[in-house]
């Protein structure tokens, strides 16, 4: 995995709260056996008409969304199923961070393991971002701060070990496999 230190980008706003993983990528696309190419199915039912043509009014189909790497959403983003296809689809589309006041547990864990930053901010910051789509935002993983174009800078929490792995481009599996001796000892002691 490539190290991630900083993401500076304009935002796209989908203001709904409780956006579930079935919206992020509907179940009918989960018959895939790879991770690649899911970006075109991101938010499929909000993004396309039944005949597959884009819905002009949906934000991802608007020209101003092009190139944005930060998705700002309402509270409790990513609730629902454990499908890792959700962060895979967001990343494949081009997003590198999701900002909300609350992010669902499993989605949060899945995102961190794939290099999609789940950024939880306070209500006031969230409201500002929701009302300023397209704002240029700077996310610094090193200092764990998100900076608005107004100059306001807020701290965000992130699990320290996941942050360490992201900053250094490390895979968590490497760390876990280094604990195999402990795991074997644990197994032996239980029987």
């Amino acid at each position: 995995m490539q190290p991630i230190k900083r993401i500076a980008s304009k935002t796209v706003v989908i203001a709904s709260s409780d956006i579930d993983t079935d919206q992020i990528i509907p179940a009918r696309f989960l018959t895939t056996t790879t991770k690649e190419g899911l970006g075109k199915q991101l938010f499929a039912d909000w993004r396309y008409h039944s005949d597959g043509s884009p819905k002009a009014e949906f934000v991802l189909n608007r020209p101003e969304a092009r190139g944005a790497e930060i998705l700002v959403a309402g509270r409790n983003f990513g609730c629902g199923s454990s499908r890792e296809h959700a962060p895979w689809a967001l990343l494949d589309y081009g997003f590198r961070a999701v900002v909300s006041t609350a992010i669902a547990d499993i989605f949060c864990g899945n995102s961190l393991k794939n290099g999609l930053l789940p950024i939880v901010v306070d209500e006031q910051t969230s409201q500002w971002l929701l009302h300023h789509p397209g704002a240029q935002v700077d996310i610094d993983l090193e200092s764990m701060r998100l900076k608005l174009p107004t100059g306001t800078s807020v701290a965000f929490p992130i699990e320290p070990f996941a942050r360490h792995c992201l900053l250094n481009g490390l895979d968590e599996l490497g760390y876990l496999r280094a604990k195999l001796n402990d795991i074997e000892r644990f197994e032996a002691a239980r029987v």
Partner: protein
Amino acid sequence: MPARTLFDKVWAAHEVVAETPDTPAVLYVDLHLVHEVTTPQAFSMLRSLGLRVRRPDRTLATMDHSTPTHTEQVFGSVPIKVDAAARQVRQLEQNAAEFGIELFGMRDARRGIVHIISPELGCTQPGMTIVCGDSHASTHGAFGALAFGIGTTEVGHVFATQALLQRKPKSFAVNIEGQLSPGVSAKDLILSIIGKIGVSGGTGHVLEYRGSTVRSLSMEERMTVCNMSIEAGARAGMIGPDEVTFDYLKGKPRVPQGKAWDVAVARWRTLVTDPGARFDASVDIDATTIEPMITYGTNPGMVLPIGSAIPDKKGDAVFDQAMHYMGFHGGESMLGKPVNVVFIGSCTNGRLEDLQAAAQILKGRKVAPGVHLLIVPGSQQIKQEAEAAGLGDIFKAAGADWRESGCSMCLGMNGDTVAAGQYSISTSNRNFEGRQGKGARTLLVSPLTAAASAVAGRISDPRELL
């Protein structure tokens, strides 16, 4: 030792390496449940790194999500209708063979929804840690196991090491007292709890369902409750094991037998929350006032007693979007609304007691003209038991479509879908937009309410037919 919760005890017993401020705990996994949808990429990862499944003996695979429920596609010569689903099924067969994992394949009599067959076989046991690449893994918490859904990367971690990196979640007591009224089921109880704490009320927490109501529930009802813990955002849901648990498990194919059984039960009896143990959060629920519940919106927290009117929250963006999608308005009554499809099944309500509840209503009655009632058993074993008990005949006589086991219409990825704009009264767990098919409108209910609504052809209170 200070007083500990059930969750504290199970967690502590599986900590290979304790967490520190800088590093999560290494948590041992006793049982890894595998299905066809969330594992292909994890097997590919193993292959690319040249790794094996470290403990195939702690891994159990089945196919349920993308499998068809039409008998001729499962057992006959008719191919699986959805090509990509057929590929996924074949790939799991290959992966299981290559990595030496036990698989209950398409025509196996032990196949079924992963969260239904594991308890059925006695693989799910008190005090275990159980994970699955599926959020409804929370179901197994009904036995006093710590069970939670994981993503595909973590599936790969468990394959390779039999452990996971985890931060310990917080604990949340759901205290439920009093007797449920006739016609009110475990499904109504959990829907009512989600309505009270909200779809993110449990985020970061492991729920423990406690109190006299919980003690009076059967194992199947407890599984229904724990199953939907994730719909409240919780990491897991647990219930302390008791005589009901031990009676259910005794004699199951994969539980300890003979003397080992007694030893196991003695150990399981210690898996209760100590008096005075502290929870990080709690809520009190009065079971006596709960009525049959129904969802009216597009998440399980948008739920109300079936006789109530939809609240009027016009101006609230989530509410307005949900009403637009559902074709409903604030202030409308739920009773009497038309029904197109009724689905009875899923890991929430696809067990024998659920089918018995539906049969209680359907016996001697007919499904209303124009309504499609689909009844899908949670496992092939349940199908067999239901047929032996005459339930299959009751369903067919009522005009229901009685199928082979699987996730079916709970999520539209196996050919069983609800058409755009149609109203589906469903015993499943998620009423998200498009969950049962693009544009499908889902209303979550108990098996009793589903059956009553199928007979009436409109949303109905089951208590009128009991």
